[in-house]
C-alpha cells in the first residue's frame, strides 16, 4: 500500500518526523518497507527574487542579474529571457541542480561574464509547455524555499507492508485511522455533500443477486449527463501517488475512492448495457459453462461456473470484483454512468483471480475482505465526485441489494485474563482507552469489557484478537521478559537422537564432511542407476516440480553425492570425502504419505590427503569405505556384521557387497559402476555406501560390560594358508576362530599375496592366494607353556586346512 504523506496529513495530524512515524508503524505491526521522496528531481531549485537586471555588456539579447535566493550573497546570473523585472520572484536552479530534462547546472562563463545559476521557465521545470519566458511566481512566494515544496510538488510516499489480516489498511482512511490510534491523534473522516436530481435510479436500473453467498451486497447508482475528460491536477496527483495511472475523470474517481475508502468500484457506460422493458437488469450470478468475456485489458477470458459475473440481459459484462468488460467500459462518448459498489466473497474472488492469472487493485482488496457496510457510502462519495468533476447529475436514490447485512461483532475482553495471557498488568480503563482509539466501542469498567467491533475490522473475531490489539498499541517492547515456570519437564535428546549425533561424529572422525543434498530427483537418473524398488513401489512424484530434473523425490543419497563429487572435480578438488544423513522416499499404490527412510550415505574419491611431504597419496577404494563402516560399527558396538559379495546395478561388479548386521541386510557398499561415473562426469574411482539408519540404531549395542584385561602373557604364532582364490578371507577367519577355541584369544589377517599376472617366477600354485594370519593364544588363569600352545596350534591348522581346502605355505 502506497501512502502519500500529504494526503494522509489531511486525514490525521502527523506532527512528528517521517523517521519516527515509520518507527512507530513498524513497532505496531505495519511495516514501512520503503520511503520514497517525490519532487526530488527539482532539488536545488529555489524561489529567488531578482534584485537587479542590467544589460549584458557583450550580448544584446542577454541580461546580467543579481538574484536573492535567501542565503549568502545574491547570485549573479546571465539570463536570456525578457519577461521579468527587478523585484519579480522566479524559480532559480542553483549550481548542482539537475532539471527534469537532465541538464545539470554548472558555474559557466557566458560571453565573458560568470553565471552562478539559471532562472527557469515552466517547461524547464517540467511544469508546463510554456517556454516563452521565465515562470514568474506570485509576489508572496517565499524567497529561499525549495521550489518543489513551494509548488506542492514534494511529497513522501510510504510503502506499507499490510499483513493479510488488515484489509482496512488498504485505504487511506484505514491507514489514517491506524495512524491516529498509534499516535493517539484524532482521525478526520473525509466529508462531502451529495446533491441529486432528475429521475430516480430505479427508473433505469434493477439488480438481482442470484448467489447471495458470493455477493452479500450490491449497490447501483446512476450519474446522468457526464462529460468525460481529463481529471484535475489534484486528483491525478493523488492516484498517481497511490500507484495508479490517470485515464479519465470517471475512471479516475473510481480509483480515487478505492484508494481513499478501500471500496473497489466499477463504472459502466449505461448506454452499452442491454435493457429489457426500458430497464437495465443487473444480475449477479455464477458464470455459465462456456461463457466468455473480453476484459478491459482486451483479453478474451473463458469463464467457469465457480466464477462470479455481473450480467445484463445479453450476458456477462464484468468479472465480479476482478475486472470490467471491454464492451461496457466508460469511454469518451459515455454520457450516463452506472456505478457499481458491491461486496464479493473473498475465496471466490481469490480463486477467479488466480485461475485467470488476473490480479487487480480490486481483486487484491476483495481477496482480503471488503467491509460490506462501505458499499453505499463509497458509492455516494464517488457519485458526488463524478458529478463535481464531470458536470453530470446524480439520480436520486440507490439500488441497494443487501441480502447478508454485516453486523458488528460484540466481544468480551476479560482484563484479568488478558494480563495473565500477556504477562502485563494493564488497568481496565487503560485497556478500554486503547481499544477505543482503534474505533472499537467499549462498555463496562470492571474486569469484563464489552467491545463492539466495527465491520471494517473483520480480523477481530475473538477475545484473543483484542489482546493483540491492546499489546501492539500499548507496545510489545513494554511487556516484561520472563521465562516459563513449568515444573514438569526435563529437556534432552532421546536415545535415537543421541545415536544420530554419534553417527555424524564417527563419520567426521573418519575424515568425512557432511553434505546436505536436495531431495529432488530426476527419474531418468534413478533408472540409469538401476536402484531397486520393491515390486509394487514407485518413486514419489511432484505434481508441480520446478523442472523435469527435479520432478521426483530421491530414493538414494548416492546421486546427490555423485553430483557433489563431480562439482568438486570440476573445481579442481580431487580429494572428496562426503557423508549425508537424510531421508529417501518411495511410495506405492494406495498410500497417501510415502515411506520416508533415514539413510546414511557416503562417497569417497581421490585420496585421504593431498600430496604430503611424509607420504605418497593412496587412491581411495572399497576398503577405505569398508573401514569407515567398520569404525562406525565398532563405535556403536554393532556385532556381528559382515559383508556379503553382491551385485547391484550402480556398483562395479566384483567390488560390491551387502552390509549384513545380525543376518539382516542394512545397506550396500562398493565402488560406483564405471558407466555411472561417466554419466555423472566423475573421474577416478568412487567408493560409496548407504546404510539404513533405523537398522543401525536398532543394532547399536546398549550398555557395555567390562571385559577383564588379560593378566597372563599371550603366545603369538604366525601362519600362512594357501587357498583357492575364490575362498573369502572371512571363511578362513571363521574357521580359525571356530577351531581355536578356547585358547585362541585373537586372530588378525596381516598379509594377502597373489602372484602378479605377469610374474616370471610363480610362488604359488595356479589359482591360489596366500593369506597370512597372526594367532594369539592365551589362558585366563595361567601362563601357557610353549609345547602346549604348539600342540593346540598344529591341531587348529590341520582342521582349518581340511575345512577350507588350504595348505600351509612353507
Amino acid at each position: 500500500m502506497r501512502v502519500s504523506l500529504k494526503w494522509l496529513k489531511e486525514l490525521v495530524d502527523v506532527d512528528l518526523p517521517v523517521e519516527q512515524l515509520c518507527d512507530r508503524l513498524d513497532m505496531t505491526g505495519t511495516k514501512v518497507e520503503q520511503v520514497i521522496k517525490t519532487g526530488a528531481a527539482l532539488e536545488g531549485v529555489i524561489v529567488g527574487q531578482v534584485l537587479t537586471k542590467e544589460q549584458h555588456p557583450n550580448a544584446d539579447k542577454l541580461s546580467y542579474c543579481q538574484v536573492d535566493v535567501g542565503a549568502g550573497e545574491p547570485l549573479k546570473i546571465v539570463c536570456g529571457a525578457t519577461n521579468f523585472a527587478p523585484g519579480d520572484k522566479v524559480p532559480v536552479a542553483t549550481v548542482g541542480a539537475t532539471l527534469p530534462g537532465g541538464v545539470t547546472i554548472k558555474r559557466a562563463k557566458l560571453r565573458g561574464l560568470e553565471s552562478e545559476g539559471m532562472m527557469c521557465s515552466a517547461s524547464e521545470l517540467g511544469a508546463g509547455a510554456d517556454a516563452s519566458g521565465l515562470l514568474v511566481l506570485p509576489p508572496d512566494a517565499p524567497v529561499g524555499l525549495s521550489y518543489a515544496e513551494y509548488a506542492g510538488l514534494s511529497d513522501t510516499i510510504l510503502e506499507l507492508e499490510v499483513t493479510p489480516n488488515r484489509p482496512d489498511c488498504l485505504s487511506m482512511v484505514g491507514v489514517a485511522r491506524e495512524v491516529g490510534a498509534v499516535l493517539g491523534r484524532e482521525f478526520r473522516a473525509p466529508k462531502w455533500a451529495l446533491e441529486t436530481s432528475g429521475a430516480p435510479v430505479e427508473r433505469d436500473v434493477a439488480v438481482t443477486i442470484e448467489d447471495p453467498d458470493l455477493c452479500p451486497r450490491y449497490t447501483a447508482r446512476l450519474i446522468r449527463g457526464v462529460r468525460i475528460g481529463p481529471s484535475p491536477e489534484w486528483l491525478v496527483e493523488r492516484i498517481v501517488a497511490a500507484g495508479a495511472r490517470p485515464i479519465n475523470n470517471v475512471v479516475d474517481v473510481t480509483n480515487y475512492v478505492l484508494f481513499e475508502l478501500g471500496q473497489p468500484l466499477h463504472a459502466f457506460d449505461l448506454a452499452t448495457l442491454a435493457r429489457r422493458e426500458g430497464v437495465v437488469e443487473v444480475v449477479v450470478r455464477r458464470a455459465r459453462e462456456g461463457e466468455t468475456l473480453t476484459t478491459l485489458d482486451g483479453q478474451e477470458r473463458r469463464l467457469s461456473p465457480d466464477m462470479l459475473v455481473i450480467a445484463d440481459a445479453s450476458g456477462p459484462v464484468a468479472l465480479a470484483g476482478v475486472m470490467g468488460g471491454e464492451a461496457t467500459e466508460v469511454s469518451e462518448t459515455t454520457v450516463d454512468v452506472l456505478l457499481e459498489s458491491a461486496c464479493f466473497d473473498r475465496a471466490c474472488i481469490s480463486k477467479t483471480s488466480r485461475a485467470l492469472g488476473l490480479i487487480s487493485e480490486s481483486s487484491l482488496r476483495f481477496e482480503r475482505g471488503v467491509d460490506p457496510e462501505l458499499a453505499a457510502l463509497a458509492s455516494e462519495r464517488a457519485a458526488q465526485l463524478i458529478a463535481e468533476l464531470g458536470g453530470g447529475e446524480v439520480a436520486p436514490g440507490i439500488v441497494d441489494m443487501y441480502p447478508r447485512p454485516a453486523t458488528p461483532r460484540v466481544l468480551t475482553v476479560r482484563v484479568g485474563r488478558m494480563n495473565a495471557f500477556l504477562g502485563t498488568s494493564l488497568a481496565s480503563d487503560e485497556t478500554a482507552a486503547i481499544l477505543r482509539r482503534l474505533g472499537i466501542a467499549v462498555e463496562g469498567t470492571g474486569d469484563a469489557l464489552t467491545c463492539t467491533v466495527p465491520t471494517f475490522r473483520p480480523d477481530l473475531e475473538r477475545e484473543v484478537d483484542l489482546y493483540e490489539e491492546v499489546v501492539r498499541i500499548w507496545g510489545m517492547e513494554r511487556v516484561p521478559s520472563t521465562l516459563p515456570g513449568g515444573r514438569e519437564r526435563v529437556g534432552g535428546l532421546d536415545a535415537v537422537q543421541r545415536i544420530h549425533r554419534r553417527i555424524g561424529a564417527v563419520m567426521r572422525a573418519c575424515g568425512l564432511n557432511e553434505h546436505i543434498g536436495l531431495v529432488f530427483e530426476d527419474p531418468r537418473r534413478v533408472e540409469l542407476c538401476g536402484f531397486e524398488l520393491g515390486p509394487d513401489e514407485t518413486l514419489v512424484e511432484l505434481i508441480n516440480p520446478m523442472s523435469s530434473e527435479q520432478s521426483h523425490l530421491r530414493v538414494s543419497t548416492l546421486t546427490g553425492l555423485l553430483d557433489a563429487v563431480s562439482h568438486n572435480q570440476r573445481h579442481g578438488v580431487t580429494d572428496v570425502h562426503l557423508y549425508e544423513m537424510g531421508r529417501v522416499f518411495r511410495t506405492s499404490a494406495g498410500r497417501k504419505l510415502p515411506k520416508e527412510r533415514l539413510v546414511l550415505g557416503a562417497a569417497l574419491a581421490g585420496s585421504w590427503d593431498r600430496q604430503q611431504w611424509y607420504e605418497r597419496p593412496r587412491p581411495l577404494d572399497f576398503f577405505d569405505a569398508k573401514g569407515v563402516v567398520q569404525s562406525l560399527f565398532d563405535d556403536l558396538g554393532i556385532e556381528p556384521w559382515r559383508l556379503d559379495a553382491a551385485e547391484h546395478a550402480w556398483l562395479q561388479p566384483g567390488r560390491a557387497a551387502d552390509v549384513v548386521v545380525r543376518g539382516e541386510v542394512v545397506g550396500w557398499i562398493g565402488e560406483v559402476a564405471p558407466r555411472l561415473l561417466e554419466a555423472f562426469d566423475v573421474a577416478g574411482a568412487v567408493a560409496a555406501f548407504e546404510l539404513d539408519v533405523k537398522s543401525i540404531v536398532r543394532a547399536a549395542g546398549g550398555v557395555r560390560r567390562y571385559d577383564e584385561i588379560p593378566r597372563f602373557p599371550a603366545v603369538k604364532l604366525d601362519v600362512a594358508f594357501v587357498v583357492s582364490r575364490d575362498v573369502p578371507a572371512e571363511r578362513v577367519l571363521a574357521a580359525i576362530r571356530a577351531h581355536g577355541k578356547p585358547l585362541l584369544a585373537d586372530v588378525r589377517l596381516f598379509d594377502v599375496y597373489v602372484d602378479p599376472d605377469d610374474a616370471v617366477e610363480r610362488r604359488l600354485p595356479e589359482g591360489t592366494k596366500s593369506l597370512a594370519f597372526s594367532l594369539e593364544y592365551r589362558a585366563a588363569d595361567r601362563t601357557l607353556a610353549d609345547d602346549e600352545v604348539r600342540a593346540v596350534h598344529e591341531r587348529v591348522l590341520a582342521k582349518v586346512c581340511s575345512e577350507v581346502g588350504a595348505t600351509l605355505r612353507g
Partner: protein
Amino acid sequence: MRMEITERLVDLRDEALSKVASAKDLEELESVRVAYLGKKGALTAVLRGLGELPAQQRPAVGRISNEVREALESALAERKQALEREALERRIAREAVDVTLPGRQRVLGHQHIIHQIVDEIVDVFVGLGYRIAEGPEVELDYYNFTALNHPPEHPARAATDTFYVRDMTGASSPDAFDSEVLLRTHTSPVQVRVMEKQRPPIYVLAPGKVFRRDVADPSHLPQFTQIEGLVVDEGITFGDLKGTLERFVHEIFGPDRRVRLRPHFFPFTEPSAEVDVSCAMCGGEGCRSCGGEGWLEVLGCGMVDPNVFRYVGIDPERYSGFAFGMGAERIAALKHGIPDLRLLIEGDMRFLRQF
C-alpha cells in the same frame, strides 16, 4: 720375581690406560676391556699367576694388582660414560628436525554449517527444558495448513508456492490444488502432531527440512532448514515468549545483541510478532550491513492461536502456549557472512571445510 711381576703390572696398567683413553667408540672400549680384564685378558692372566707367588709376597703384589685393576675398571667406566654421552649427543644432533614442517595429520571431517547451527540451537533449548520432535517431510495439507488455521484460499497454498505430491490413494485428481499431499512448507506440522499425541506440558523444538517453490538464487533455496519451538502449559504468557527468545538470541548471537518484537500476522499465532536482532556491525544505528535498518529479522513467533488448540483438542481456556520459528540458512548467512545460499547445497569441499 716380585719386582718382575710388579713391573709387569705397572706396564700393563699404563698400556691399558692409554688404550682406554684412545678408544674411539664403545666397541673398541669393550675390546680393550676384554683384552685386559676378560677371561683370557692380560691382567687376568697375571692375577691368575698370583697363586704361584710365595706367600709372603702375595699381600703386597695382591694390593698392587688390585690397585691396577681398580684403576683400569674406573678408567673403563669413565671412558664408557664419556663415549655414551658422545654417542647420545651425536644421535640427538642427527635426529634434529625442522619443527616447521607440517604435522602428520589425520584430517577430520566437518559437520555442515547448517547442522552445526541446528545442534547449537537444539542444545540451547535442551538446556531450557525442551525435547526434540520430528515429523514427515512429505505432509498432509491438514497438518501443514488446515490445522494451523490457514483458510482454504490462503495464498501459501498456491501451486506457485507449495510443492504438491501425487496422492497414490487416487483420492484426488491430478491437479495441484486437489492433492492433500505436499512437501511441508514449515516444520509447524510437527507441532500439530506433537499436540495430537501429547498432552501439556509440551516443550518441544522441531528442526527439519522444509520446501518452498523458489528458484535457487543467492537468497532463496527450494529446500531449506527450519527450527521451530512450541510450548504449551498452564500460565504461559507473551512475556515468557519474549524472555525465551531473548535468551536464545543472547546464546546464539551474543549477550550484547538486543532483541525487538514487531507485531506481525501469522495464521497460527495470535498475537504474532517478527523478531529482530540488533545489527552486529552498528548495534542498531543502521549501517550498510543491515541496509540502514539497524535490525535484522531472524524469527517469527506468537502465542498459539486458540483455533489451533481447538484442532488438537487442547482447552485454550486452561492452557496457553507460544511458538516460534526461524530459518537456519538465514542465521548462517547473518552469522557467518555467507553471501550465496546455493553454497550450502553444492557439497563443495572448500566450503564445507571452512566451518
